[in-house]
């Protein structure tokens, strides 16, 4: 299962590296959204500073939808799903590979948007402890987002109207991640009235989400891909 996952993720990352959709389109998109939030909210930066965690994670969620679209569009070329099902790859392995691909791209995006926010919204980072909280929250949240994204991406592979259906299905499902990750970041950045102890509890909730969706994905992907 893990070996299959590595084969799939290596292939996906190679495609990303060669097509450069992620670097050429996804990263600029995330930055554009950050700038748009700045336009929409204010130029005084008080509201922006307060709202930074939420804006960051809304940006990530929007990017997640695009990322999932992209990583499954590559699989929708004629004959590919047939070959994938004939390949002998373990469905759970394919799921993990796809989720891992989304996860890696999300992490890269998160690092970039956090730096973007630091510059555009003048975010001030706190102590080592709060940075550790942010890193952990981002890692765990990304696992959950990637798992849910990979699952719904596969569910809609080959469905007509997939582009519009994916956000409708995926965004409500990942709402807890938005709440959890935003609150954890608030704790870390000190923008809300969330203490860092509460911040770590949020990381716990994110972990529950991640575990639930990774497990369910491993079991559900077989029937999803099986098709018979």
């Amino acid at each position: 299962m893990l070996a299959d996952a590595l084969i799939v993720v290596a292939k996906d990352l190679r495609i990303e590296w060669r097509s450069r959709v992620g670097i050429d389109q996804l990263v600029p998109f995330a930055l554009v959204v950050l700038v748009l939030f700045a336009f929409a909210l204010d130029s005084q930066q008080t509201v922006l500073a307060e709202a930074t965690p939420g804006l960051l994670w809304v940006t990530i969620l929007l990017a997640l939808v695009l990322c999932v679209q992209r990583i499954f569009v590559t699989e929708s070329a004629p004959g590919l799903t047939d070959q994938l099902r004939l390949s002998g790859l373990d469905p759970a392995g394919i799921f993990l590979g796809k989720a891992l691909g989304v996860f890696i791209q999300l992490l890269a995006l998160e690092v970039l948007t956090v730096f973007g926010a630091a510059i555009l919204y003048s975010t001030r980072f706190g102590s080592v402890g709060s940075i550790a909280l942010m890193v952990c929250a981002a890692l765990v949240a990304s696992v959950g987002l990637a798992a849910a994204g990979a699952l719904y991406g596969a569910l809609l592979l080959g469905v007509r109207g997939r582009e519009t259906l994916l956000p409708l299905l995926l965004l409500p499902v990942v709402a807890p991640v938005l709440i959890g990750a935003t609150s954890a970041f608030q704790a870390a950045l000190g923008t809300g009235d969330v203490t860092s102890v509460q911040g770590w509890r949020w990381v716990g909730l994110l972990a529950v989400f991640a575990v639930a969706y990774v497990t369910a994905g491993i079991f559900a992907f077989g029937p999803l891909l099986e098709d018979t």
Partner: protein
Amino acid sequence: MRSVVHLRDAVCVLGRFPALAGATLDVGAGEVILLQGPNGAGKSTLLRLCAGLLPVQSGTAEVLGHDLGTDARQVRRRVALLGHGVGLYEDLTVTDNVTFWARAAAGDAGDVAAAMARVGLEARLADVEVARLSAGQRRRVALAVLLTRHAELWLLDEPHAGLDVQGRDLVDRLVRQAAKSGVTVVVASHDLDRSTALADRIVSIAGGVVTDDVDVRSGRRGEPAGTIDDPESADAR
């Protein structure tokens, strides 16, 4: 004789359309079958069904000794399908594509090199992205992928389409070599001259059922799909 493909009144639905409306067909081990019929007759569906990719709505369908209704997954690992869509990643190079599918089928670098040499993919093309290849070149890459699978049953859907003369000769050569080494081959084709030279039997299909079945060497026309044990299966309706 143990049959590799054994279909009895197999009905197969695409969406709500019955692409196969009760097909009956037996293919013995090592045989080369030519599947012919008009467009939309159900040839591609029959091949995809045999690959274990489509659900059987009713009737019996066994491939390589496995019931497709229950363990299609067992079948899938042991067949190779060359479909209309070549099943290649546009953004990856030829070598990357073949390597990925070979590794997925538990092959190694040796398999990749051997397969690419056999289909005559020159070194020049090895590092070109599939997106930049012509249709014929893509077919060759797909053939290389097919070879890495070491399958027991080949299902070729219009393998000659879009290929130049050398390419068609290559397909024929590969099919003969495969048949010699005991692989069963089902070819759907409109290129009758070429395929009849290749095939042991010609099976006609129309409207989702098998309508005719002729042995090429003896010229003997079997009851549709050799229905010795069940003479009224295809004609009864």
